[in-house]
């Protein structure tokens, strides 16, 4: 389906396009600060037409946050899968997490700011995925400490710290900056290992 934009140009309006516009606006103004009429205006359609492609603002938020949380968990699984060395697993887990926060900044900002606006049961599903991810990283650190490879005094604080450090990449990274997303992710995975107590990761 297409809709006329204010300039008369016709763009395809699909559920994916609606979600993309909502992602941009939620990231910029927050979930509470965004009206559906603004999502419609962004797409160059009238608000009633928007309802052909979505059910509610809440459902848009739920889809964005749940998909993102599921992807984070899947990426963690892929990062540690088949790696025997615990330091390699932690490094790769931190690298993909930092990389995601450089490449999916809008989603990251929404997940970190607007989760409290989610309704059940999605809120619990998201919190559960997040908890699983944090516990899994914490378990890697504990394993590294048990093997004498890492020196973190408290694996829980270290996992909170290194994960949140990666999250923060979304707040300052710019694709036009001096460093690529890959470069930043590499550096942050080194920082993450240092936080976990690997004194010299190189």
């Amino acid at each position, binding site marked *: 389906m297409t809709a006329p934009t204010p300039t008369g140009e016709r763009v395809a309006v699909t559920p994916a396009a609606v979600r993309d516009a909502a992602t941009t606006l939620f990231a*910029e103004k*927050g979930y*509470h600060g965004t009206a559906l009429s603004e999502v419609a205006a962004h797409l160059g359609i009238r608000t009633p037409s928007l309802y052909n492609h979505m059910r509610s603002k809440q459902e848009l938020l739920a889809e964005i946050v749940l998909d993102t949380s599921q992807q984070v968990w899947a990426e963690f699984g892929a990062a540690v899968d088949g790696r025997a060395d615990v330091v390699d697993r932690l490094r790769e887990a931190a690298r993909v997490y930092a990389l995601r926060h450089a490449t999916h900044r809008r989603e990251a900002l929404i997940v970190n700011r607007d989760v409290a606006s989610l309704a059940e049961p999605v809120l619990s599903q998201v919190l559960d995925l997040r908890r699983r991810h944090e516990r899994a990283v914490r378990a890697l650190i504990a394993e590294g400490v048990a093997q004498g490879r890492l020196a973190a005094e408290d694996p829980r604080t270290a996992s*909170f710290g290194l994960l949140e450090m990666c999250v*923060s990449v979304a707040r300052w990274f710019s694709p036009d900056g001096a460093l690529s997303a890959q470069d930043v992710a590499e550096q942050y995975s080194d920082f993450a290992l240092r*936080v976990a107590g690997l004194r*010299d990761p190189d």
Partner: protein
Amino acid sequence: MRSVRATLTPDVVLDAALTLFAARGYHGTAVSEIATTLGVRTPSLYNHMGSKHELLRTIVDGTTAGVLADFHAVVDPADRPADQLRRATRTYACRHATRRREALVVNRDTTSLEEPAFGEMQARRREHEHALRAVITRGVAAGEFRVGAPALASFAIRELCVSIARWFTDDGELSADAVADQYSRFALRIVGST
């Protein structure tokens, strides 16, 4: 009828606004809700405040100026870079454990600031970031730190400390001081302090 409500002062209004902004965001908070929290009618509230934007501006100004004042209070220019970094990150981490409302508002709602407040806030933030980066650069030059990208390390360390406000609770296992100690050690490790 006797009133039992607390005396309304600009500070009381600011405190109520801070709590609501932190919980619901600046956009998600109406001035009428601040009035409800304080048990007054909205028109009465305006005797004690300017606009909602002015409340946000006061919160952000006070917080970012406080961060800079903290830094200069604990960092002695004559100290070794490792001691400077430890003290600077310890106080910054501690602030984010003990002043969580301010931290959440400053890190989420500053895009709602209008000029010139927005520019002033950015300048103070930049000043803090540059001061921290200068400590790291001195440490690298002195051979005390071993890190390839001082700018990235200073971003990482600052954001690491900021994140404490997102998970710390007063009734958790760790005190604010214990968390601040751990985080200052994280900072030293990130720069490869020897």
